[in-house]
């Protein structure tokens, strides 16, 4: 290698370094311009009857619902036909960097009055979540993923006063959760890739931290299935996507 070519290599290295730095700064800038996707999810038709739950087998549980009887929560409809517990996530269009960004907050799944609160807990792949118990009766927390997805089922006891269990999942999957001791207990871990949101009791939602771009938004409801919509998010803007599920 002669002197001349060495100079060229050095110049190339400097240019490459500056380029990479600029790219990094550019990405930060785009992070500041993140937008959001909002909307409401409604049920079209009469709300299905939610079966009452007989908790008489466990005195603690039945006492907890002495004045407010518990009902199955497969389809929860709020005022104005808003659907609660619908998970919204971006199924197409996210860049690799947006997919790899992991939220730092730790969502909590509580066992309260022998029911799951929330009924559906959404989370990102690889995001830590916590399972707690507020009950003075023993539960076992038993998620049922398909082990061939990479999510492995486990089964842990949580007697009264037990410390929270912190876990995460490896692959996107809608995972049913049950308690064998209280067979009526039924909940979901909705594991998705990228930003997500869950509808509140009015059926409204907001997916935060969405970089500008064209996306497909998917709405998932445990018994009514999935629906998709295409949206465009402008830098710092808010895209709207409303969904309506037909009552079965």
């Amino acid at each position, binding site marked *: 290698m002669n002197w001349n070519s060495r100079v060229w290599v050095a110049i190339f290295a400097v240019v490459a370094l500056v380029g990479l730095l600029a790219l990094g700064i550019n990405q930060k800038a785009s992070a500041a311009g993140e937008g959001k996707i909002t909307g409401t999810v409604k049920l079209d038709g009469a709300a299905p009857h939610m079966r009452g739950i007989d908790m008489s*087998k*466990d*005195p603690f549980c039945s006492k907890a619902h002495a004045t407010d009887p518990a009902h199955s929560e497969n389809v929860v409809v709020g005022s104005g036909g808003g659907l609660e517990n619908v998970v919204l996530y971006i199924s197409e269009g996210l860049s690799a960097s947006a997919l790899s960004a992991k939220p730092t907050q730790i969502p909590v799944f509580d066992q309260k009055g022998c029911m799951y609160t929330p009924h559906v807990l959404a989370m990102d792949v690889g995001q830590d979540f916590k399972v707690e118990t507020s009950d003075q*009766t*023993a539960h*076992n*927390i*038993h998620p*049922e993923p*398909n*082990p*061939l997805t*990479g999510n*492995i*089922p*486990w*089964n*842990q*006891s*949580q*007697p*009264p006063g*037990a*410390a929270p*269990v912190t876990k995460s999942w490896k692959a996107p999957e809608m995972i049913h959760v049950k308690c*064998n*001791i*209280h*067979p009526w207990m039924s909940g979901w871990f909705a594991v998705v890739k990228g930003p997500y949101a869950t509808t509140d009791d009015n059926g409204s939602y907001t997916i935060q931290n969405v970089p500008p771009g064209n996306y497909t938004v998917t709405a998932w409801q445990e018994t009514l299935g999935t629906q998709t919509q295409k949206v465009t998010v402008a830098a710092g803007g808010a895209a709207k996507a409303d969904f309506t599920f037909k009552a079965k």
Partner: protein
Amino acid sequence: MQTKLLKCSLLMGVVVALCLSSASYAQLTTYQQQDWLNSPAATSHIGNITGNAKAAALPYRRFCVGCHGPLGDGNGENAVWMPPPMYQKPRDFQLAIFKCRSTPTGTLPTDQDLFDAITRGFDRSNMPSWNPLTRQERADLVAWIKHFSPRWQNEKPGTPIQIPAEPEITPERVKAGQEVFRKMECWKCHGVQGMANGPSASTLADDLSAPIAPFNFTDGSRPKCGDTDQDIYRIFMTGLDGTPMPSFADNIKPEEAWDLVFYLRSLQPHNAFNAKERQIANQLGLKPVNPNAPAQ
């Protein structure tokens, strides 16, 4: 002539249908990971014995395929004759969820765990003890079982739980064990006397939604995952994956765990292991736990 033609076309139709069905059958054999079978990973290690998966292809056909099936999914031709809750479906090696592990809940078992299960068989099931096979043959079968599931290529077995040395049995320990039984609410399924008649017993289902009964300590049954004190310790600390029995590893300290083993022993009818526990429980005049008693 026409009937002959009809017969001929019928026969052809049957042949075509058979070909089609066998073609779709061939598509289902995703487990046949030939590359893996030829790799050094297709082995098991039991002490100083190395099991070789390919060596077990024929023994598996001879001894296991009737129940576990050619695909290892537990759908062998005998499987339909094992209705729950009396029997559980033969193990599905594709899912690789195993009851008897020395490893934490949600992890793969060790080679030794699988070897022990084959050797021991399962009490109250159609799985006999395969102790009559040589150690080498059983080790080969362990390696073969692992080729049915991609999990053995993507995951490592869990780290076996630590079991401290067994302390001496004392009346205090048996009593403390009963308190663990009450606090952990083992009685919710196993019943206050260990008679498998707790309030939740009748609604239990395994991961395939088939009804399943909790272990009855009082009828002379042997625990499915082994009969020694260490086995019982392991059962409640790792949980039996695929069944309602959870892991108590986060909630029972190692010291308390031995207390619970001693108390559980005292619930069993007289056997080779529990003379002292029964004697102590008798002397103490232990009554069944009271689920409604306030915490002590």
